[in-house]
């Protein structure tokens, strides 16, 4: 086996038992790593009783998995997964940084974490030594303080173990903030200060397990590869192609706060009441003024699309933040009626510090904003907060209630879908029309009505197995370099799709150079990716225990996306119901689902997923 360390750590936090696990080659060839492997592990261990598994209970399994390309591909990530407390299916949620490379250098491909620790803890992986350690001194701490503590402490410990080594470089750390500790459904897993595994809500899953962080440090090399010369040559050639994408390097997505409004009319504004603005004060050039690092990246990255923003004066002096990428410019900016970079950077930092999800957290604050605007939520409901659009202090106060799950904050901490249901129940009104979500997840900042966004596909969110995840949108036809079967490749081989400047065929070649295993494009789309997709679809449909999705009926766009765009150059544009339904039906057929969107017995058995077929039958999905 090449490209893999060949070892996974199976950690039960309840019993504090740590076991080493390995998987047969056949399983790794089929499910690769990251998202694919997570899906298989979850099915094997929890599939039979999936509907009863509480994503925030000790029975859930949290996975942090690398893939065979992790570390070798120029642009490194790790994939966090588990049963999602947002969609109640499985989400592959990737996060950038050195963690994946560090873990493999420690001789470990991934962590499978179950149970619940009795007291707050963190896991430390130092080569072949694995410890569950006390996290009570940092429980309750925000991002910066958590990072500072763990970084310093871990370095000191490693130094003590290797007194003659010389200076010891920092380890890699994945951790949660208070929003995760309090098991909200809108919390992320963090790295550095504001890198995040966002979609899925795995910060809350970590919190529910009393797990504050995982620290990894490996002194070894990355595992052996099959063809070192080809690997090195392709590392170079793929990087050279990435260098050529100058716009991307220059701006990352940091010009998006203006572009997706003014250019493509697809930006959430005041809870998606509009998608167009042309506020030039919100352009990339204005954000650029605060960038102390204009090219910032993680292990092996040739693009360095991240930018580091620091505020050194004014009201928000002392703010440090990965420059809000487009999603945070939207959800911590325009969606709350905030249109100036400094305030947006400040608010993005507050979100990061708390370990809230930029998208899910910003979206739920935006929902509250609209309900306040419409008089459905009053300042009495909001602890006296005057939640006018753009009132930063007000949104800041509400954010703190969400993080602590106090008063209305406890309702909002459940995310847009569940919050709207609960507030609607309390008020006796149907709030469905105000919620822009897909299967329990707030939709990323890419409206589809104008047809000008990169996701211009009407079934992109409706048919995704990862709900509102804009990185995993479905597409018809499903085969090709875009669409969900391609996202499954990135998230399972585990590398950064943003740093990918080659087509998937080159990725398959690189995979072969690393693993020595052939991979044809045909087999990927028709077998492997399709198999992973069926498993994700099945677990999404099984859902539970608190929510379930109806096939077909819930494979739809949120009501707001069916209304005409109210403003801008594309005012009046909307989606066409007939063409949406036609495309959806075609997509169902193309991926082997019946007319209701349920994987057919033929599809499942031809992919060797007999147990999935039986389960769907048993759960009543077959007429």
């Amino acid at each position: 086996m090449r490209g893999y360390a060949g070892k996974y750590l199976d950690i039960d936090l309840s019993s504090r038992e740590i076991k080493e696990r390995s998987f047969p080659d056949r399983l790794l060839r089929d499910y690769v790593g990251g998202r694919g492997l997570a899906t298989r592990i979850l099915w094997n261990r929890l599939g039979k009783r999936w509907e009863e598994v509480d994503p925030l209970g000790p029975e859930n399994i949290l996975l942090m998995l690398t893939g065979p390309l992790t570390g070798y591909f120029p642009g490194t990530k790790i994939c966090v997964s588990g049963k999602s407390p947002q969609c109640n299916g499985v989400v592959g949620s990737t996060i950038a940084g050195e963690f994946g490379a560090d873990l493999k250098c420690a001789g470990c491909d991934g962590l499978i974490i179950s149970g619940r620790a009795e007291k707050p803890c963190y896991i430390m992986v130092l080569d072949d030594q694995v410890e569950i350690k006390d996290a009570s001194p940092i429980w309750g701490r925000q991002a910066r303080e958590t990072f500072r503590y763990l970084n310093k402490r871990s370095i000191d410990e490693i130094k003590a173990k290797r007194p003659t080594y010389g200076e010891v470089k920092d380890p890699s750390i994945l951790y949660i903030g208070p929003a995760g500790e309090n098991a909200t459904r809108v919390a992320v897993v963090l790295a550095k200060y504001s890198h995040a595994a966002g979609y899925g809500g795995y910060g809350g899953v970590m919190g529910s397990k009393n797990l504050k962080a995982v620290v990894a440090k490996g002194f070894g090399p990355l595992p052996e590869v099959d063809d070192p010369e080809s690997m090195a040559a392709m590392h170079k050639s793929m990087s050279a192609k990435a260098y050529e994408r100058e716009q991307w390097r220059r701006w990352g997505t940091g010009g998006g706060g203006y572009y997706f409004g003014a250019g493509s009319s697809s930006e959430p504004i005041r809870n998606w009441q509009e998608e167009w603005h042309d506020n030039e004060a919100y352009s990339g050039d204005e954000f650029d003024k605060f960038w102390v690092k204009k090219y910032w990246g993680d292990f092996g990255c040739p693009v360095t699309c991240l930018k580091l923003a620091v505020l050194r004066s004014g009201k928000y002096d002392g703010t440090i933040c990965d420059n809000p990428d487009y999603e945070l410019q939207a959800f911590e900016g325009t969606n709350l009626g905030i249109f100036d970079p400094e305030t947006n950077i400040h608010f993005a930092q507050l979100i990061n510090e708390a370990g809230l999800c930029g998208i899910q957290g910003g979206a739920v604050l935006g929902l509250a904003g609209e309900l306040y605007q419409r008089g459905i939520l009053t300042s009495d409901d909001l602890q006296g907060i005057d939640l006018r659009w753009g009132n930063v202090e007000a949104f800041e106060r509400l954010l703190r209630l969400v993080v602590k799950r106090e008063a209305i904050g406890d309702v909002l901490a459940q995310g847009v879908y569940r919050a709207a249901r609960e507030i609607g129940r309390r008020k006796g009104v149907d709030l469905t029309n105000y919620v822009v979500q897909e299967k329990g997840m707030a939709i990323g900042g890419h409206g589809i009505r104008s047809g000008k966004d990169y996701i211009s596909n009407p079934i992109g969110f409706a048919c995704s197995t990862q709900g509102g995840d804009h990185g995993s949108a479905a597409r018809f036809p499903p085969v090709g370099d875009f669409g969900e079967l391609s996202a499954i490749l990135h998230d399972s081989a585990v590398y950064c799709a943003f740093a990918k400047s080659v087509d998937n065929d080159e990725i398959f070649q690189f995979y072969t150079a690393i693993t020595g295993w052939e991979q044809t494009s045909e087999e990927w789309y028709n077998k492997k990716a399709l198999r992973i997709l069926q498993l994700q679809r099945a677990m999404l449909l099984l859902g539970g225990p608190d929510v379930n999705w109806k096939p077909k009926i819930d494979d739809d766009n949120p009501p707001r996306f069916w209304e005409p765009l109210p403003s801008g150059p594309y005012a009046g544009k909307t989606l066409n119901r007939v063409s949406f339904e036609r495309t959806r039906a075609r997509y169902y057929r193309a991926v082997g689902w019946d007319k209701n969107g349920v994987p057919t017995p033929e599809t499942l058995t031809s992919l060797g997923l007999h147990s999935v077929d039986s389960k769907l039958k048993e759960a009543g999905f077959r007429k």
Partner: protein
Amino acid sequence: MTQSGQVRMKRDYLLCSGCRRCEIACSLFHDKRIWPEASRVRVFMFIPGVEIPHLCFQCDNPKCVEACPEGALSVDGQTGAIIVDNGLCTACGSCIDACPGHVPHLHPDGSRIVICDLCGGDPECVKVCTDGKWDALTLLQHDEVHPKEQQPETPQELTHRTGMLILGERTLKEVWDE
């Protein structure tokens, strides 16, 4: 004594993207593997955003050479790099203690010290850094680098200095246990 033709590495920490491609290039060249800890240049990140590529400063009178009890270290006459004789090095660590910048470190296999050898005069780390147009590490002729810039400093000292520039004193104190 220095000779013409000797090269030195210029570092601009504010330009470091933190991509660590220098570590990849260095270990691929010397160890034929991607092996960040074996790399002769190591990027320290005590504070996210303050990344410090740390490697030999090529002092005029290298204390490490003086301190080696085995005579395993020498200055390459052509390039000016410190050369480790792996046959003589016992990994005793005297050079680490002697270096004012705490630059040398053990190869992670524990057998010997690793110090930047400038790849024989055309360092791989500089190539990747300039190919990517970051230019945090660039190569200059010996006399083009101001001697002050060549003062060895520890990763902590460099983090402090760079952190002061990026974050300012108050914020730096907040984010780092120096």
